[in-house]
């Protein structure tokens, strides 16, 4: 999987001009737009749905994504700032028993009319209830890869979440009471992918498969999931 992802990235980087050459890029983009008969906004990737699934927003643009499925559901909001930084807020949940609220930033590593590579770093919390209750600070790093090929565009997200679980031990002796802390680490890599359809500049839909390998080493097996998402946004 890693080799495939690296290959896709390398192909994206090498196959076409990058945004650092604006003079040469515009005629290429216009020619391509004319070739496929698409609106200019789509040809430039300026869709809220593409921002949510591909990562990063242009300065002033905002986007919200809501995802419903099994077992994961999520809501995500992001807004583009100057300097290529996109703060984002995310809340995802598995069956309303495992909650992962996070704040983070997203930034585009590669930006091209035909695709996008971005990275996200998120920090937040994890709360899981029931017989497997656990809670603690949690962070994730995620790479998003988006292909912009037409009305329906493929996307891929690969990442990993790390959670710290703190345990407290109190020891009462005749002389004193001492408290010791220890920490356990949980790692949950994930991969998700699907297709996003930009209906208009402001609204889109996506269908995707999600596979979170939850708490590797502690959970026996993780089942894959599926979701349907709606994205909307503005600011352009």
């Amino acid at each position, binding site marked *: 999987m890693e080799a495939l992802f690296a290959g896709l990235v390398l192909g994206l980087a090498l196959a076409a001009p990058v945004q650092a050459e604006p003079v040469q890029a515009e005629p290429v983009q216009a020619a391509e737009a004319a070739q496929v008969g698409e609106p200019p906004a789509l040809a430039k990737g300026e869709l809220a749905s593409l921002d949510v699934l591909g990562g990063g927003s242009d300065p002033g643009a905002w986007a919200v994504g809501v995802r419903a499925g099994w077992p994961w559901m999520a809501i995500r909001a992001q807004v583009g700032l100057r300097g290529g930084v996109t703060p984002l807020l995310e809340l995802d949940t598995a069956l309303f028993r495992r909650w992962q609220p996070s704040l983070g930033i997203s930034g585009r590593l590669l930006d091209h009319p035909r695709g996008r590579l971005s990275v996200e770093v998120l920090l937040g919390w994890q709360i899981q209830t029931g017989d497997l209750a656990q809670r603690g600070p949690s962070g994730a790093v995620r790479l998003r890869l988006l292909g912009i090929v037409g009305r329906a565009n493929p996307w891929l997200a690969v990442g990993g979440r790390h959670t710290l679980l703190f345990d407290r031990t109190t020891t009462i002796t005749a002389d004193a009471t001492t408290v010791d802390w220890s920490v356990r680490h949980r790692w949950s890599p994930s991969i998700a992918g699907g297709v996003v359809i930009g209906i208009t500049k402001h609204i889109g839909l996506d269908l995707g498969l999600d596979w979170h390998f939850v708490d590797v080493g502690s959970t026996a097996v993780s*089942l894959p999931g599926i979701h349907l998402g709606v994205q909307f946004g503005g600011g352009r």
Partner: protein
Amino acid sequence: MPYGDATLDAADMHLHFGEWGAIPPSTRTFLAGNFPFPLGLNSEQTAEGVVTGEGILSQLDRAGVRRGLLFAVYAPRTVGVATNEQALVEMAVDPERLLALGSLRVDSWARDRDLQLDALRSMLDEPGVVGIKLAHAHMHFRMDDPDYFGIYDVADEYGVPVYVHTGRSPFPGTAQEAPYTEAQFLEEAITAYPDVPFILGHLGHDFEPDFTEPLDVVLELAQRHENVWLEPSALSDDADFRLPYAMDRMRQDGLVDRIIWGSDGPQSPGFVDRYVDATVEAMLASDYSVDEAQAVLAGNFDRAFLP
């Protein structure tokens, strides 16, 4: 139940029912952690769809098994409590197809011995209750302690078999010491009660890769004592070694007429189905005849529990 070109009747002598809340918290965590994610997040919901009379019957239907035996359990330190009264309720879902083994609490034996034995007698008075279920490792009492032989007096009085869990168990809080797990510690009781059938469950499986030593002990007991029966449940392993090896050894030792098949289900949807298939495969591989396979799957069950 297909067996080669034949179709066989089948009965599962080892099935668990219960309520999630009647399982100790440490065992609930252990079980939930073994469910695939995200099923462990809603562990109570996941489990209770399966461990009711209705759930068990649907598992039996899926597996082509006609009849099942429900186990009452009193093991508050380990796997939890599934009462005699609840066994009667679950059995009533289909009394033609579901029977039960009764059990009793032994954790305050010095104080409650006579009370518990009377409660066991009351359970055995109920239609469809065909024997007694014990698990020394889960219930925490020694197999060779004569103070507990009053249980076998009751079995003798009612003319019913006693199922005994032999071998170790992965559940939290289980006793792992030899007098609670190893079948040779039962020989005193087996000898003292020659008219009571003792069904040695799991064939002494000790969760070690090499199954041969505990199996040798169990099979030697069966060869020395006519009242020892053999139940090959919960022997699946990744190497697909234990169950085929056990089925082959028992046939080689001429003990087919005392094998009573059980699964230790329902565990998860499809478990009973998979385990009976694995047993059939093991019997085919060891050249069990149709008559021998039928004896294992149902004939010996009927002789032991429905004479």
